[in-house]
Structure formats: structure tokens, C-alpha cells
């Protein structure tokens, strides 16, 4: 048996165990170890849907970095601003979709403005770009505090998103023999679906379109791309708009699932950082893998060892760095 086959067998076994864990009715001893099947499956589902949200934020972050070598540490601020704008638009017009749309568009514009007026002037100067983006995030956090104060907001989702989904997963069997099926909030499933659609869309855009070709060429050799007649600045502005817009979009979507409050900017900045460090800079697939790992670690940690959940995330990051400093899908530099 070759090593490849051995790994294949291993992953098949893992998949079988997970499938059994999800679909089988648990014996009592397993319930005793893992609290309850409901808690376990919910943690997994929460992890996956949270990963969807993390992916939305981190994909913008990694996209911007991938092309422009521009670490935008104000990315968390973009998320929070998007959330606030989504809240304002939704609560004033009553249309949630309009709020989501506004979150994307406004933040895309903000992104273009930042790119043109700030980062374009500091091209190729990593450290200053980082410092400037930190400065922007400080000012932005303070100004957002001035406008929206320190309270917590919740973006109301429309009724058609509010229900719960009954999944074909049996959590327990009642004494009369009837099965209890797991119900799960529809909204979170929709978030996950949106993340998957956007992820696939981004992947297609990067790998199958002309713009994507330019972006990938820009990642590898910016000067050559420019020399071959492409308006690099325009490409940069587009990428920044998409990346920032995704952060704003994620802000509205995330603010509807969780809540909007000061401090969320740092939380999502950290999430994006860890996700792209683990997944590999500039890779959409890496962002998806990283988001999945971190989302699952966070939620499973929350259920089984609440205090050390954050440490689990951290351990994943350190182990990844120790084995592959460039991240799981990152290119060796």
C-alpha cells in the first residue's frame, strides 16, 4: 500500500466516523462522554456556519493582501462599519436585503477611497501601510463610537429567514419510540449557503475570467502585468472594492446573526488574521480551509472546554506555522 492510499483510507475512515456520529442514534456511553448528541451536532453546525461568516471576512482580507501585498489592519473596522450601515438602512427602510446591499456597496466605495487616497501613495512600503491602516482603524473605531455609542444593536432579519429547519438528524429517541429530529435556525444555513456561493464565485472569478487572470498575474509579478498594458491601478481598485465590500457584506450578515457592538472590529480582525495565517496568504481555498478549522475549533471549544476555546484556535495557528510557515495553501516564498 502506498502512502497516498494509506492517507486515502485514513480520510475515508474519518469521514465514516463523522457520518456515523452525525446520523446514528448515540449509545448512552457516548452521550456521557460528549455531553449529548444535540450539543455535539449543534457545535459542529455552528462551527461550520460561523466558518461561513469568517470566510466572508477573511476572503476579502486575503484577496487584498494577495494582490497588493497590502495588509489592511483596518479590515475589522470595515466589517463593523458595514454592520452599522446595514443596521441603519434595515431599521429605516424595513428591507433587510436593502441593508445587505447597502453594506456591500458603501464599503466597496469606502475601500476604493482608501485605496486611491491612502494605500496607493504607500505602494510597496509594507510597514507604513500596516501602520497607516492601524491608524485608520483607531480613528474609525473612535468615530463609530461617537456616532453609534457603545450600545449593542441587532439587525432584524425578515420573517422568511426566521424559521428553523428540521434536519434529518436524530438527536434522541423518546420512550414511545418516536424520534426527535434536530432543528436548526434557517438563517445560519442561509449564511453558510451565501458564503459557499460567494466562495465559489470568487474562485471562478479568479481562475476562469480575464480579470481573475490579471489579478493572479499581479500576485506573481506586478511590474510585468503593468508592462503588458494592464491598468494595474484599476485592477487594484477593483480588488480593494471587492475585498472591502465583502467585509461590509459580512458585517450586515454577521450583525443579523449575532450582534453589532464596539469591539467586534477587533474580533473579526483577529479571526481574519488567524484564518489567513492558517490557510495561507492570498489563497481563497486557504481562506475556506482556515475558516472551517477556526470556526469549528471555536464552537467545539465553546461547548467542551469553554475557557480554553481561544487557546485551541491559537494551538492550531502555532502547529500550522511550525509545519508550514506559509500556511496550508500558501505558496512558499
Amino acid at each position: 500500500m502506498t502512502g497516498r492510499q494509506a492517507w486515502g483510507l485514513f480520510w475515508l475512515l474519518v469521514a465514516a466516523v463523522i457520518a456515523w456520529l452525525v446520523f446514528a442514534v448515540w449509545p448512552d456511553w457516548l452521550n456521557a462522554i460528549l455531553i449529548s448528541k444535540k450539543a455535539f451536532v449543534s457545535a459542529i453546525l455552528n462551527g461550520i456556519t460561523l466558518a461561513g461568516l469568517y470566510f466572508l471576512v477573511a476572503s476579502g482580507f486575503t484577496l487584498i493582501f494577495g494582490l497588493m501585498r497590502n495588509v489592511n489592519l483596518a479590515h475589522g473596522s470595515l466589517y463593523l462599519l458595514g454592520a452599522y450601515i446595514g443596521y441603519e438602512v434595515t431599521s429605516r427602510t424595513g428591507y433587510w436585503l436593502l441593508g445587505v446591499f447597502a453594506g456591500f456597496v458603501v464599503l466597496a466605495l469606502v475601500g476604493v477611497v482608501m485605496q486611491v487616497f491612502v494605500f496607493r501613495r504607500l505602494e510597496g512600503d509594507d510597514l507604513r501601510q500596516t501602520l497607516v491602516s492601524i491608524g485608520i482603524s483607531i480613528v474609525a473605531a473612535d468615530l463609530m463610537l461617537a456616532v453609534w455609542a457603545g450600545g449593542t444593536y441587532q439587525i432584524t432579519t425578515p420573517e422568511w429567514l426566521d424559521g428553523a429547519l428540521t434536519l434529518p438528524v436524530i438527536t434522541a429517541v423518546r420512550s414511545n419510540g418516536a424520534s426527535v429530529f434536530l432543528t436548526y435556525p434557517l438563517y445560519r444555513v442561509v449564511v453558510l449557503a451565501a458564503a459557499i456561493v460567494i466562495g465559489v464565485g470568487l474562485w471562478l472569478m479568479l481562475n476562469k475570467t480575464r480579470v481573475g487572470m490579471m489579478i493572479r498575474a499581479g500576485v506573481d509579478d506586478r511590474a510585468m502585468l503593468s508592462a503588458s498594458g494592464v491598468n494595474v491601478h484599476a485592477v487594484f481598485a477593483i480588488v480593494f472594492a471587492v475585498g472591502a465590500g465583502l467585509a461590509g457584506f459580512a458585517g450586515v450578515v454577521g450583525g443579523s446573526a449575532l450582534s453589532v457592538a464596539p469591539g467586534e472590529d477587533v474580533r473579526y480582525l483577529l479571526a481574519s488574521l488567524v484564518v489567513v495565517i492558517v490557510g495561507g496568504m492570498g489563497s481563497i481555498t486557504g481562506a475556506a480551509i482556515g475558516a472551517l478549522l477556526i470556526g469549528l475549533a471555536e464552537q467545539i471549544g465553546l461547548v467542551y472546554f469553554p475557557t480554553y476555546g481561544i487557546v485551541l484556535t491559537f494551538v492550531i495557528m502555532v502547529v500550522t506555522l511550525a509545519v508550514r510557515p506559509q500556511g496550508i495553501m500558501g505558496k512558499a516564498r
Partner: protein
Amino acid sequence: MSLTIPADSAAPQKNWLEKLGAGHIILAVVLVLYPLVASDFFLTQIGGYSLIFGMLGLSLMLLAGYGGMVSLAQITVAGIAAYAIAILGNNNSNILGFGWPWWLAVPFAVLTAALASALIGWISVRTEGIYTIMITLAIATATYYFAQQNYAIFNGHSGYAGIRAPAFWGVNWRDPRPFYYLCLGLAVLSYAAVLYGSRSTFGMTLQAIRDNPRRMRALGYHVTAHKVFAWLLAGVIAGLAGVLLVWFNGRVSPGTIGVDAAIDVLIIAVIGGLRHPIGPFLGAVVVVLMQTFAIDIVGAERFNTLIGMVFLVIVFVSPDGILGLWGRIKPQFAQESLRSGS
């Protein structure tokens, strides 16, 4: 990163007074005499606080200026020393507090901080430039959240309170004047050590590694070991600053090591300038003065906006901070200070 420092010109033998330089002597006299004119408020809240944050900035300057590694985890290292003091010494939070005497607790706290710093360095030295910033930021944030959630060691959200600076040799080091001199003494010690260290073989090697790691590796230097050792040294300075910080505040909580504080340290070092060890202290004075008095200028709420704006302007105008600005205004002076300083 463009933090190159011109090489020392072969200076003729000077006596120690000349070696010290007029600038240093004037500065030392001013700092020693400062308590004669300053009120208690200016002595601790401005003087002591600036010196503590200057030391934190200095530990970052050591890594960034000489090693080319920009760290956002210096406040984390300081926080580890601060927590160690709270846990090993006395606190009134009714949790842990082993009651060790200061002469045992302080070295232990600084050692713990230095080892933690070396560990952070060991994790992050495999990466370069921007990656180091991101990884140290991730480490700092993770530590913050961990401290906030952990009640067994860190006492969660509330942290530790009621930590007092020791009284020995008949001096209560908590009083404004002794505390100021304590801060000044340790700051000068760290400053001199960094200045001396930067001219030592190790310092030179570190700077060479910053400029061309590949060549140094080819020459047979253990690049990783040198960088991790620099982290260890920076950890000692940050640890000392952490001990002073916990004595200054009398308490330590997750807020002390939060992201805001981590960024404050970076702002201080960058505003001051990373070319010379005096930079972080300059930056600390400016930032502490701004934090204290911006409230009077822009109202109680928006002083972060002001500080952020000043930071942005300085980064935009002069990548080398106040030292760089000064260098532009007075080119000759800058030449002199670089020659005598680097």
C-alpha cells in the same frame, strides 16, 4: 523594511565624558532634576508613565530597529510580568497571591516574561516583515481573550487589584518621587544596555541579519538563534516595564494587555522613531501628554481620534517618526546624532 543605520565611523579614543555626549548629559541632568519642579501628578502620571511606556517602546525598538521584527506583543510580555507579580506577590482579589517577597517575585516575573517573549519570538521568527506583525497581533489578541476567560490563573475579566510596590531601605517606592526615580533608573539602565548592546558583536550581527539574513546564514551564523535571543533581551526590558506598570496601576486586568494597549506601544515607538533607542522615550512623552491633555482640546470623548490622526500624519510625513522629522529640520544635528547614536 527600510530601517538601515549608517555604520559607525572609526572614532578616535575618547574619554568617557566625551563618549557619553553632551546631549545625554544635559538630558540626564534635566531628568534627575525634574522632580524639583514637577508636581506629583506630573511626576508619576506624566514622568513615570512615559518612562514605563518608553521602556515598552524600547523593547519594540530593539526588535524592530535592530532586528527588523515589528512586534505587537510587547504589551503581552509586560502583562505576563505584571500578572506574575500579582500572582506571586500579594493582591487583594482573594485569589492566588503567594506572598513572595519582592526580591524573589520580581526576578521571577522578569524571567517568566523573557521566556514568554523568547517563545513568541520562536513562533514568529520563521516569518518575515508583515507576517511577524500579524502573528504577534494574533498572539497578543489570543492572550487577551484567554486572560479574560480564564479564572483559575488570570482571574478573568476583573484581573487582580491591590498590588503594592514594595517598601525597602526605608523608602516606600510607591510614593511619587521614589517611584519616578525607580522608573528613571530602570529606563536609563535599559536604554544604556540597548545602546551598548547595539554596538556589541551580538548587536552588529543582529543588524546584519536584519539587512541580509540569507548572507548571514551563508556565513554560518545561526539566524534563528540570534533573533530568538533578541526576543529574550527585549522580553527582559518589557518584563521590567511590566513590573513597573503593575506597581504604577496597582492592578492588572485583561484591559492592560488589550489590543488598544498593544497598538499604543507600536504608536509610541513609531511616533518617536525606530532608528535610535531615544526614539521610543520621545514618542512615549508625546503620546502620554496627548492622552492626558487631548481631553482638554477635543473634549472627553474623542481623544483617540486625535491620537490616531497625529499618528497618521507622522507616518505619512516622516516614516522615521519625530527623530526623522527632527533630522529633516536640522540636518546637521541629525548627522551628529546618528553618528554618536547608532
